[in-house]
């Protein structure tokens, strides 16, 4: 697979004259199950520790061992951490893909390859470095069966030497990676050193790429979005977690289990939580609803196929008004699709998940920090609005490592919404579950077990009146549905507001994007300015329903490019349903569906072409 879809750069002749510092992308092509993940993490961390903004993206197959996998690391002094379309530095470890990997490179790129593959013969416009891995690994790893794993550490040493990554930082990263296994750390370090020495002795520097110490990552952390979501959920006070394993969401709950075992067991040794692996997604969401109805902060995590299965219960949540949180770590659909590739393809179906007039609150994190904070937002909104809240993450955010400022402790109190206690009922005498007392569409509820004869109500997915009694009366049904709509309208002023970046210079072009597309947009805006003198304002959506800011942004701009990672312009479709009819024609779609994280160049190219530039 060529992960660079287009070779973009002009052949600028043999490099070597140029000196490119802290601005490159490295792609490591390996076979999955070969232990390369550790090597790549060590490389990523070493660069990070040297203070250079960095991002790592794993492009992996739906397989346990033996299929091609690519890992891209981008180091960038300007802080761009979106995937870079061009590969500057290829580490070709996989004989299966090596030829195609090399052929798809742009002229001037660098290839570090396994000597016997003789890739040098393929092209004369690239810079090649040959490494005899098998010869180098034997002396440092006498145990033959470990060689397959240790072998990959050798390229870390080679790359470190060629780019100028400090060995002290590499060692530190290795010690962190193999924290509790000193023997493994030493073995891996020896392999790195073998690579480093080989490069020092036999590979004179021919390429222009350098990594130099900077101070741009001081105090920052590295974490993946799923772990951030897990942490956020723990601090949001989650008590019931039910799930069914599915890529790319499984690690969210698995990490959460680790954190909860560590930090949520009381002094008496008992758990302040229940985590249950359910028999399927239907049961997982059913348990969330049961727990939410009974008053727990309940959540599940899944991906597209799970969302489809949860559809019926999502409607029950909407109509019986039961809180809960669902993390959708989006992957490529339809159907099984590309289970290990990223997408924003569940937006439209999730917004209206289930039959009848149903709609849901969506939160859309762009960063690991937002995975953390939106966990709390999601529970607060779910309990305030007594409905499911879907957090629309994606594989790129969830499973890849991201740099971030440390997360801030949530200092706002946990908000449990309109719940009547025994004391309230003593005072009120009774209550009508689905009555709009406050004019915001949100009724008051009681929790099962509330010790008052008037506490009980009958939750149901069938037609009901204000008192939660079964009703097929047209006026009861209509009134209830109108109230539910009012509740959804209320949500507009409670969901997170978008991030808006405007320069005030031009109101011609605006970009609307969301989720992980954000990082490509930030970079694309700079490309547009520098290369095309085009100022594009930018609104990053964080939630559905849309807040007033979204309408105003569209009103302010002549042409709005809605950038998203799906085929059918799903967010644009939602916007069309929401904005004034005369504004609809302002919306244009830039859509990407290849399953790789969005890159800035693709956005810039497409936007400028649509602008006639």
């Amino acid at each position, binding site marked *: 697979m060529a992960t660079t879809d287009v070779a973009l750069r002009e052949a600028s002749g043999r490099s070597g004259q140029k000196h490119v510092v802290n601005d490159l992308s490295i792609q490591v092509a390996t076979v999955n199950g070969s232990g390369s993940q550790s090597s790549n993490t060590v490389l990523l961390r070493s660069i990070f520790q040297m203070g250079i903004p960095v991002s790592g993206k794993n492009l992996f197959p739906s397989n346990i061992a033996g299929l091609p996998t690519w890992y891209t690391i981008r180091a960038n002094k300007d802080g761009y951490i979106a995937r870079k379309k061009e590969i500057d530095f290829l580490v070709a470890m996989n004989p299966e893909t090596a030829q195609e990997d090399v052929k798809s490179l742009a002229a001037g790129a660098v290839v570090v390859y396994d000597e016997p593959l003789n890739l040098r013969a393929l092209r004369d416009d690239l810079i090649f470095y040959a490494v005899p891995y098998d010869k180098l690994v034997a002396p440092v790893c006498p145990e033959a069966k470990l060689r397959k794993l240790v072998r990959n550490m050798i390229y870390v040493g080679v790359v470190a030497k060629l780019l100028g990554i400090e060995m002290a930082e590499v060692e530190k990263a290795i010690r962190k990676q193999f924290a509790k296994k000193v023997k493994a750390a030493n073995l891996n370090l020896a392999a790195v050193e073998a690579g480093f020495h080989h490069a020092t002795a036999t590979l004179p520097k021919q390429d222009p790429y350098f990594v130099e110490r900077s101070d741009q990552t001081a*105090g*920052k*952390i*590295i974490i993946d979005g799923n772990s951030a979501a897990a942490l956020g959920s723990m*601090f*949001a*006070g989650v*008590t*019931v977690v*039910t799930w069914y394993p599915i890529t790319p969401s499984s690690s969210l709950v698995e990490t959460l289990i680790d*954190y909860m075992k560590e*930090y949520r067991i*009381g002094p008496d*040794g*008992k*758990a*302040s*939580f*229940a*985590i*249950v692996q*359910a*028999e399927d997604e*239907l*049961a997982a*969401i*059913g*348990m*969330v*609803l*049961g*727990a939410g*109805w*009974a*008053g*727990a*902060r*309940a959540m599940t995590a899944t991906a597209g196929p799970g969302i489809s299965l949860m559809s*019926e219960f999502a409607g*029950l949540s909407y109509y*019986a008004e039961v809180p809960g949180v669902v993390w959708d770590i989006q992957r490529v659909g339809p159907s099984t699709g590309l289970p290990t590739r990223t997408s924003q393809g569940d937006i439209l179906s999730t917004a209206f998940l289930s039959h009848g007039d149903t709609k849901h609150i969506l939160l859309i994190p762009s960063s690991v920090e937002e995975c953390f904070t939106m966990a709390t937002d999601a529970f607060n909104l779910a309990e305030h609005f007594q409905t499911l809240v879907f957090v629309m993450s994606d594989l790129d955010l969830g499973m890849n490592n991201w740099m971030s400022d*440390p*997360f801030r*402790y949530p200092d706002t*109190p*946990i908000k449990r919404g309109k719940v009547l206690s025994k004391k309230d009922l003593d005072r009120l005498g009774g209550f009508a579950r689905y009555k709009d007392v406050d004019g915001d569409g949100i009724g008051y509820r009681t*929790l*099962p*077990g509330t*010790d*008052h*004869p008037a*506490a*009980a109500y*009958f*939750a*149901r*997915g*069938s037609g009901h009146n204000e008192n939660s*009694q079964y009703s097929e009366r047209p006026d009861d049904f209509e009134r209830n549905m109108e109230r539910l709509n009012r509740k959804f309208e209320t949500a507009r002023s409670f969901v997170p507001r978008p991030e808006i970046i405007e320069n005030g210079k031009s109101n011609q072009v605006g970009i609307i994007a969301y989720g992980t597309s954000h990082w490509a947009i930030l970079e694309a805006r700079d490309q547009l300015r520098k290369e095309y003198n085009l100022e594009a304002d930018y609104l990053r959506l964080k939630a559905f329903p849309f807040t007033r800011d979204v309408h105003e942004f569209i009103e302010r701009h002549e042409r709005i490019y809605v950038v998203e990672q799906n085929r059918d312009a799903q967010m644009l479709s939602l916007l069309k349903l929401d904005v004034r009819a005369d504004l609809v024609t302002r919306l244009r779609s830039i859509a990407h569906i290849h399953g790789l994280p969005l890159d800035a160049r693709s956005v810039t190219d497409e936007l400028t072409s649509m602008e006639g530039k």
Partner: protein
Amino acid sequence: MATTPTSTPMPKTNRIGLTVLDYRGGKTTLCAGCGHNAISERIIDAFYEMGVKPERVIKPSGIGCSSKSPAYFMSRSHSFNAVHGRMPSVATGAILANHKLLALGVSGDGDTASIGIGQFVHLMRRNLPLIYVIEDNGVYGLTKGQFSATADLGSKLKSGVSNDLPPIDTCALAIELGATFVGRSFSGDKKQLLAMLKAAIAHRGTVMLDVVSPCVTFNDHEGSTKSYKYMKDHEEPLQDINLIPAFEEIDVEYDPGTTVDVTMHDGSHLRLRKLEEDYDPTNKINAVRRLLEAHERNEVLTGVFYLNSQAPTFIDMLNITDESLATLPDSVVRPGREVLDEVMEQLR
């Protein structure tokens, strides 16, 4: 009309001072004579006689005639009429959230044995503290009388159509999978059903009661094996069942030769006077064998088939704190600032 003034007698109350009226529900909308109504009556009696506070009880249900019935008993208990075949997951979530609740899940044979069989199977494995009642009439009532998966081989619909597929025996399945109290009864057998429901209330763990409950509209005719008449002719009770609640004094001795006495989780005593020699309700393998034999003999075996009052429940296995998870204070569910600092340090 009485002409002399008399003082109104004090209504009878149970041990927590409630009258049987406090356990009533709404007026039933099921057909007159529906077995489900008789089951609702027995549920009311059982919770009243056991002195269970209705506010402590939840009534999750699925979809179908059976699943509507929680509206017709115990209005002071919270109900959740969920989606078809998914009562088990909703009940599980609710019990996880608050394990102090006493859950009475109501389902039907269609709701359980067809669309809900997956959730049923996994619920049974977990020994979640829950009373699972199947109101079993062998047909889909609300959709007007199609066969369900508990319909017996060769039984006939009103139209004369014969059932060609073998039935799922939910009791045999429940025993095999891990339920810790499994029995079958008949909506028309007031005494037995009441005693079994009371024993169910005293048990901690998954109770699975399959209650044959004739559908007077779609499955009470000649050729049906779930009709009143068929049950009168074919019911074979295993035991005479008597439940002596923990709060009542035991004043009757029993003969260990003819009666099994089981001390329940709450201290109640379940007395099973054997009608069959050597039936041991703690023996799983024999219980399943006896059920299979009953099918061969065209008997509808009723009684307590299997009982294990010692097994850990799902709540025990999960090691959940004694308080209800639903109402834990913020200080317990949100770790302190120092925890976040520690985690952030690890991520640097």
